[in-house]
């Protein structure tokens, strides 16, 4: 019945007219309330300022009064007890007071002239600014309250002097109030003068006026109680204020001298605005006009029967026009501005400033991660990368040392910030599970309860709430059951993850290596190496995180209850991603093996301001060699071994031998010895694992490279002899090698493997099967290291006669291996 009545009423034009009128009346009330609210808040701020101002006045008045009282009492005391001070006559008193008045007038006049002069000088600056900004500057609250006090005091005193004209006698009270007001205005002169000095400091204006303004309007637009008109008013005002901010931004950027101070401040302002916005954004109605509309045209065949028939009836295209709110506009705008700042810093050639600005991203990164705004962060990063690459390409690469360090810092900062964003986002994914669980447990679907979720989910899940409310409206109770809506929610969430995770992978797999490659191309090998080396840590960390993520996704999969295709949860192959990350780690190590990237580490000088690239590359490559050998992967070994060998020889032959290196001789020998042992161990393990896996290629390639290198030495025999002698730390020192831990780990890993595969060794308690290869067998049964094996098997046979003392491990092993060969030969006979 009511429905029929409603339809009938809806068909009458007077109803719509009436409705409009009602809306207008409601709007008048709302506008009144809004205006009252605004003036109330303004009055509050003014009152607060006045209050603090009065407090200061009272305090100083107290001190003045105290001072006056002391002076008077001292004078009175002196006059009473001493005779040399004659009492003042009435004329004298009058003269004194006149004199004091003159002082006060003089002071005030001086003050006025002083400030007037400054004002005139500064007013020249007015003309260069836009009208509304000037208005804002002059209307600025602090100034206006002080100025109002001045004007009030002057008016009061003038009127009081004019009173006798009308036949009134100003009494004592008027005199007292006039004095107080004059005192207050004297006090107001000081803050006013202060204001004059930083009158044109637009940053202050941004912070004091525009940002609070925008924040207030964001809240106004987000308030669900406000009508559409009022919310629109807030949106429009916010956009105006933002436009002012952008104008100030342009002004500040135009002033090239003070960029150093102004740009970081502005960046901070933008960041603060963005953070505030990201926290508030999801409370804004998704359909609000806060989000500008982008129009979209629906297709006739997909628009639905009603819309199509209606459109056909009226032959109108507007039925099929759909306006979609752009939910990212403010973020995009701000990101654009922030990137503009960095670009400008590069343009003026201030790399330190650019680095500083880039570093501000880290605060934003966590905010992005918390709200799952990964795409905004990634968009920013991509933009930064373009800017950095462009800037580094155009700049003269041969700059002085300081600037070079800054450049490396910039490149490093970019990579670090990127991986920071990725890791934070992954962490947020883990932590969000609990929040979602709580939300599901409550099983309460309304616009209000949805507010506790991140903004993107609110947008995505709004339709569920709409449906449930519709069901309640039509059927009287909720029909959609928990499992169904939970599956829908999880589906949306996973769809979002499915977009994020490949991008995370892409960052490590493509963006960082490409960035490093670009840097290497620009002949900035330090920066390239730094980026690669810094990313290794993330590579080490990520597979574990991805494992956890896989478990998380499995847990989410339990929400899959309905098997219809439109509800199927998206499939995210985390294992595959994890594999990709691991393979990209290998690629990163391979780039370390190329000369173009790591060219600079051959220079002998170490720059303390940078991380030690030589050492890290050396050790990373050593590990990479061993892992390639352990995996029986000759190709991988080929990629990393030459550079490692090169670094090892460099260290042994020149870096540690260099007398300018200030270390004591024993340690120097130890260092050389450990490098030789590392190299020998790597080659020894190549032989050993080659024998173990029965894969001759593994050792052949490695040994061939070694031989080729040795072949270049002037006296080969002498060189090899030096190697053997230095490899034995016992020969020159009582202490063990200070860098031996890493090699022990390699050996333990080998023994572990042998034991797991069922081959016995000297340490094993149970007896295993003897390995079929002699070399492995002998090695396992001896106490030798892999380096000993290398020397015994490869070096010693190259000497005709050993005329010097060799470590008995080597000789012993050499003899056994030779005996075996002879035995074999005997057996052949």
């Amino acid at each position, binding site marked *: 019945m009511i*429905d029929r009545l*409603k339809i009938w009423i809806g068909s009458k034009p007077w109803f719509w007219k009436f409705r409009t009128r009602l809306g207008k009346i409601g709007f008048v009330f709302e506008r009144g309330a809004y205006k009252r609210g605004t003036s109330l808040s303004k009055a509050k701020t003014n009152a607060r300022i006045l209050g603090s101002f009065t407090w200061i006045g009272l305090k100083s008045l107290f001190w003045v009064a105290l001072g006056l009282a002391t002076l008077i009492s001292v004078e009175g005391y002196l006059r009473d007890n001493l005779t040399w001070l004659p009492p003042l006559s009435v004329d004298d008193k009058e003269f004194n007071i006149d004199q004091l008045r003159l002082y006060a007038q003089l002071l005030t006049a001086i003050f006025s002239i002083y400030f007037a002069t400054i004002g005139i000088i500064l007013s020249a600056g007015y003309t260069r600014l836009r009208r509304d900004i000037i208005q804002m500057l002059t209307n600025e609250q602090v100034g206006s309250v002080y100025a109002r006090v001045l004007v009030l005091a002057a008016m009061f005193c003038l009127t009081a002097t004019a009173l006798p004209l009308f036949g009134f006698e100003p009494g004592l009270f008027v005199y007292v109030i006039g004095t107080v007001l004059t005192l207050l205005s004297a006090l107001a002169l000081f803050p006013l003068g202060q204001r004059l000095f930083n009158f044109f400091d637009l940053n202050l204006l941004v912070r004091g006026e525009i940002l609070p303004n925008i924040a207030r309007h964001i809240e106004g637009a987000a308030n669900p109680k406000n009508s559409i008109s009022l919310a629109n008013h807030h949106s429009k005002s916010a956009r105006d204020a933002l436009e002012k901010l952008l104008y100030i931004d342009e002004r500040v950027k135009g002033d090239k001298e003070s960029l150093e101070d102004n740009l970081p401040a502005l960046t901070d302002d933008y960041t603060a605005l963005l953070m505030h916005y990201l926290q508030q954004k999801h409370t804004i109605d998704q359909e609000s006009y806060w989000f500008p509309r982008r129009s979209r045209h629906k297709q006739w065949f997909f628009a639905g029967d009603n819309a199509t028939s209606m459109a056909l009836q009226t032959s109108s295209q507007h039925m099929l026009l759909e306006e979609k709110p752009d939910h990212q506009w403010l973020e995009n705008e701000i990101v654009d501005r922030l990137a503009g700042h960095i670009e400008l810093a590069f343009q003026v050639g201030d790399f330190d400033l650019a680095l500083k600005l880039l570093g501000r991203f880290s605060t934003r990164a966590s905010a992005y991660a918390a709200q799952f705004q990964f795409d905004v962060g990634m968009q920013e990063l991509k933009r930064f990368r373009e800017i950095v690459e462009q800037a580094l390409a155009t700049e003269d690469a041969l700059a002085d040392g300081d600037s070079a360090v800054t450049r490396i810092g910039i490149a490093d900062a970019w990579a670090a910030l990127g991986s920071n964003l990725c890791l934070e986002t992954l962490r947020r994914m883990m932590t969000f599970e609990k929040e979602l669980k709580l939300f599901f447990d409550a099983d309460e679907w309304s616009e209000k309860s949805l507010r506790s979720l991140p903004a993107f989910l609110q947008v995505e899940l709004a339709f569920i709430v709409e449906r449930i409310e519709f069901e309640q409206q*039509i059927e009287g109770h909720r029909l*959609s059951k928990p499992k169904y809506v939970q599956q829908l929610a999880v589906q949306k969430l996973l769809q979002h993850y499915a977009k994020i995770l490949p991008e995370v992978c892409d960052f490590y797999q493509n963006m960082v290596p490409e960035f490093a490659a670009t840097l290497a191309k620009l002949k900035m090998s330090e920066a390239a190496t730094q980026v690669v080396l810094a990313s290794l840590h993330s590579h080490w960390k990520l597979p574990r995180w991805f494992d956890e993520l896989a478990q998380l996704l499995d847990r989410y999969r339990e929400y899959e209850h309905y098997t219809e295709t439109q509800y199927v949860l998206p499939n995210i192959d985390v294992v595959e991603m994890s594999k990709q990350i691991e393979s990209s780690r290998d690629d990163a190590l391979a780039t370390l093996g190329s000369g173009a990237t790591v060219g600079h580490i051959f220079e002998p000088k170490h720059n303390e301001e940078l991380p030690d690239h030589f050492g890290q590359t050396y050790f990373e490559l050593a590990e990479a060699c061993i892992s390639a050998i352990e995996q029986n992967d000759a190709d991988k070994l080929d990629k990393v071994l030459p550079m490692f060998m090169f670094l090892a020889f460099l260290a042994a032959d020149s870096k540690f031998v260099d007398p300018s290196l200030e270390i004591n001789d024993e340690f120097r020998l130890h260092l050389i010895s450990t490098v030789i042992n590392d190299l020998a161990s790597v080659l020894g393990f190549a032989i050993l694992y080659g024998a173990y896996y029965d894969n001759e290629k593994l050792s052949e390639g490695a040994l061939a490279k070694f031989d080729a290198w040795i072949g270049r030495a002037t006296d080969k025999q002498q060189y090899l002899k030096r190697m053997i002698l230095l490899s034995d730390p016992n020969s020159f020192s009582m202490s063990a090698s200070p860098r031996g831990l890493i090699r022990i780990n390699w050996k333990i890993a080998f023994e572990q493997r042998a034991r797991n595969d069922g081959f016995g060794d000297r340490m094993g308690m149970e007896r295993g099967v003897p390995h079929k290869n002699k070399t492995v067998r002998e090695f396992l049964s001896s106490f030798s290291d892999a380096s000993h094996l290398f020397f015994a098997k490869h070096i010693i046979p190259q000497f005709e006669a050993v005329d010097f003392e060799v470590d008995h491990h080597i000789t012993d092993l050499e003899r056994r291996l030779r005996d075996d060969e002879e035995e074999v030969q005997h057996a052949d006979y």
Partner: protein
Amino acid sequence: MRIIRAEPLRHRYFHDEQIGLVDSLFLKRKRDKPNFNRRMFDEDFARLFRSVNRRNGNLFEILSNDDELTQRLLGNVKTRYAPHPLDETIRELVEEIAQSLVWFGTAYYFLHDDQEHGDVHVASFNSTGVVRFFGTHIQWLPKRTEKRWDRDDKEIPREIRILDAATVMRFEMPKAIKRMLTAQNRTLTVLDKHQFGVTDFHPEATHENPNPTNHFDFSVWRDTQELALYRSTRGTGWNGRKFDSSKRSDFFDCHRLIRFRRNQLMLKDDILRQLGAELSRVGMGYNAGYTVEISATEELPSIEHLDELETRLTREEVGFTEIIDYCYKR
């Protein structure tokens, strides 16, 4: 005016009838042409059987003590399409009855003895002007012109035909469904009436006032219409042939679909029951102790299963596809 005892007039041409004052007492005013929503609902609701299950021929179970007579009665039913096996005939008969019930509220059939072939035909006739007085049916025929192609038109005076109760079969809409439909149709009619009302609200631009103010708010108007449609169809469960609303969840759709099919099944079962009863009654003219009962077999969906599906749906133990399949494919 003639009062005769005769068979009912089967085909009537309303545009040839001249309706006087007296006639309008007996003939209900011609019902308004059902519009849009009404029309769509009538079509959807009268479609008791889905075309998919036309193939196999054991939809109905016939229990009677004289199979030959049953065959004779039902074998020559004049339905819209060509002669069929018995099963098909019943299906079409039920569907036809349902259509008439949905449109007119009652349906009339009579037995036509074909003396030449010795057959019995069951044929429908229009329910307009048919009145029942103490068990006798009267067909009221106003003055009409009979058009003949070879001769001049012939004026036929007003007639009252008293029908033979033993040969007339009358079917009625079950009370519960009737009540539901009237309630719904009242709103649907209003809806249909104001369906294209939107266009009235755009004031015309004149030379003096090129931009007239428009107070009309389309979204409010549309919401009211939509709400009214869904509220009114709550009992029947009709979906309004709307497939473009994002507001409806699958639960909503499935619950409604189940309700809609349930109502249809109730109607079908009731028609089958009435059909059995009426056939038994008219069959007594041929065989005194004749009874026949027609019921749906397992091939057709059943109310019990739908109820079970609904409870399982609320417990989330059944998928949407299963429900939709059961409702549409059987």
